[in-house]
């Protein structure tokens, strides 16, 4: 066999193998990640009534204490804003508070990107991370539309709210719900029509909103009293950042 024919056959072989692998891969990829673990008869969710939130950050502290989050990182935080009527610049300024956390989406973008299946979803809807498997690549941090994930500097793995899985599995409420002074945070099973959260959601009707609905992630953190200007990236002025940031903005 002359070398050019051999070269052609070798190359063609490589391309065929590549095409076959791509075809198998495409089929497997269509299957997508499967939920596992947890109780399929439940679907946990959180409802946050913003009319009751006073921005005290008790939830932030309770979460960090319960889950031993390193200083400077947060699984939940209450963002706060000064808001005025754009058409009335001399009018009154009011405060708007917005607790943020993982939305435990039904269509979580963080799960399919994880290259080692460390991020997964349980049958009860909670999105969790297997710390022993996570390689700390940060892909899930990028994919989360809510900036709810971070790389934990102690474990060097991805980290985020678990709806306090250790507490809920023991029959307790998540720490942030337990400690919420205004009773703004509510937690429960939305598959149970008699649960407190189901009743609150039914009563609120059209008042119920989610963050970033355009991402089609089907979030399971519901807000009552959410100003639509805060549903996505907030179009406002940052006020608390460092001098570096100010020089960038100048």
């Amino acid at each position, binding site marked *: 066999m002359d070398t050019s024919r051999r070269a052609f056959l070798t190359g063609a072989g490589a391309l065929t193998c590549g095409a076959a692998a791509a075809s198998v891969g495409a089929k497997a990829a269509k299957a997508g990640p499967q939920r596992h673990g947890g109780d399929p008869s439940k679907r946990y969710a959180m409802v946050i009534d913003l009319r009751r939130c006073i921005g005290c950050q008790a939830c932030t502290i309770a979460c960090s204490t319960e889950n031993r989050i390193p200083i400077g990182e947060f699984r939940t935080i209450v963002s706060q804003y000064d808001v005025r009527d754009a058409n009335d610049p001399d009018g009154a300024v009011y405060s708007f508070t917005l607790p943020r956390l993982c939305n435990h989406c039904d269509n979580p973008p963080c799960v399919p990107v994880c290259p080692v299946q460390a991020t997964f979803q349980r049958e009860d809807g909670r999105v969790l991370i297997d710390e022993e498997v996570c390689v700390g690549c940060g892909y899930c941090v990028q994919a989360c539309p809510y900036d709810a994930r971070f*790389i934990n500097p102690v474990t060097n793995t991805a980290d985020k709210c678990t709806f306090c899985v250790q507490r809920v599995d023991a029959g307790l409420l998540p720490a942030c719900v337990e400690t919420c002074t205004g009773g703004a945070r509510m937690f429960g099973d939305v598959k149970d029509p008699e649960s407190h959260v189901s009743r609150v959601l039914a009563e609120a009707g059209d008042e119920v909103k989610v963050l970033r609905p355009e991402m089609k992630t089907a979030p399971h953190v519901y807000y009552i009293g959410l100003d639509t200007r805060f549903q996505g990236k907030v179009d406002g002025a940052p006020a608390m950042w460092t001098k570096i940031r100010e020089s960038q903005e100048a």
Partner: protein
Amino acid sequence: MPAIIETVNITHEAAWLPWAVFYFFFAALAFSAAIISTAWTLLRRPGWKRAARMALLVLLSSAIVAPVALLADLHQPGRFWHFYTHFTPWSWMSWGALFLPLFVALAIVYSWLALTQPKDGRLAWAIRPLAMATLAFALLVALYTGMEVMVVKARPIWNTALLPWAYLFTGLMGAAGLALVVDAFIPGDHATAERKLSKVMGYAALLSLLTLGLWLAEGLTGISDAAARTIAAISGSAYWRMIGLALALSLAVPILGFFIRGLPLAVLGLIAVAAMWAFRWVVFMDGQMIPKTGAGLYAYRLPMGADGLLGIIGIIGLWLAVIIIVTTITGPAPRQGAAQPAE
């Protein structure tokens, strides 16, 4: 007075470190150099022998360095083997974990063989099939590195179908530019190789600029919602306007070789490499400083340690060491008309 002032929030640190910039930089140099090298090793285009040799040197050195940067970007590098024990076919990164080592292995064998050309000619027959296989995997690495970032809807600046093309075109520009720089340090007949490589660099720079122009047009006209949202987020920032202008200018410089004769092509090549790197820095590091939910922009401060300046110096130093070793071992380039490897 703005209608909304954010008074309490947190800055989200960049999860992808400068190491990621350098991984995408060296990976693009490698896959682009592999593509350029086939002009001679596969197609035997006249006048391409020395130019292809320079591309092979870029390929070999970059293919060795790229995985080091990738491993360093993992926060748990010791767990890299999880990629293989937990293969995930629906994740582009998981596919990349398969493509990259195969590409690197093929690239090393192929470029080494093509550069050293064993005198007895026993393995000369292997160069072409190796070139084909390396080219196939180079295209797969180009595909996965582009798609991996493009699919992230949460970051509108990444979520554009133009991004993989921008990676490819800037990669070809940078690889040709780096080959020109390497060429300047290796004695021999420079003229033909310079002509070929500067042409690739110029056309790739032109395509890169057109791609960025298309993205801007998509955003300004609202054809692309992601591009429009990105522009809305950054247009008020003097910093972004400055880096946008600097990037456009540095991408335009490699095209000057078409119009002005006698320009030092190695210098243009170096600017092309810098522009290629800067494009990735802006996309990754500055891109991560656009909050997904918060107001304004976050500030990035380059750490001085391994995840910042020290890492940058280290990885550039590693590439320099590798290219010096490789060029020393492989020896000077044969003259343009010298005997060809057996076919």
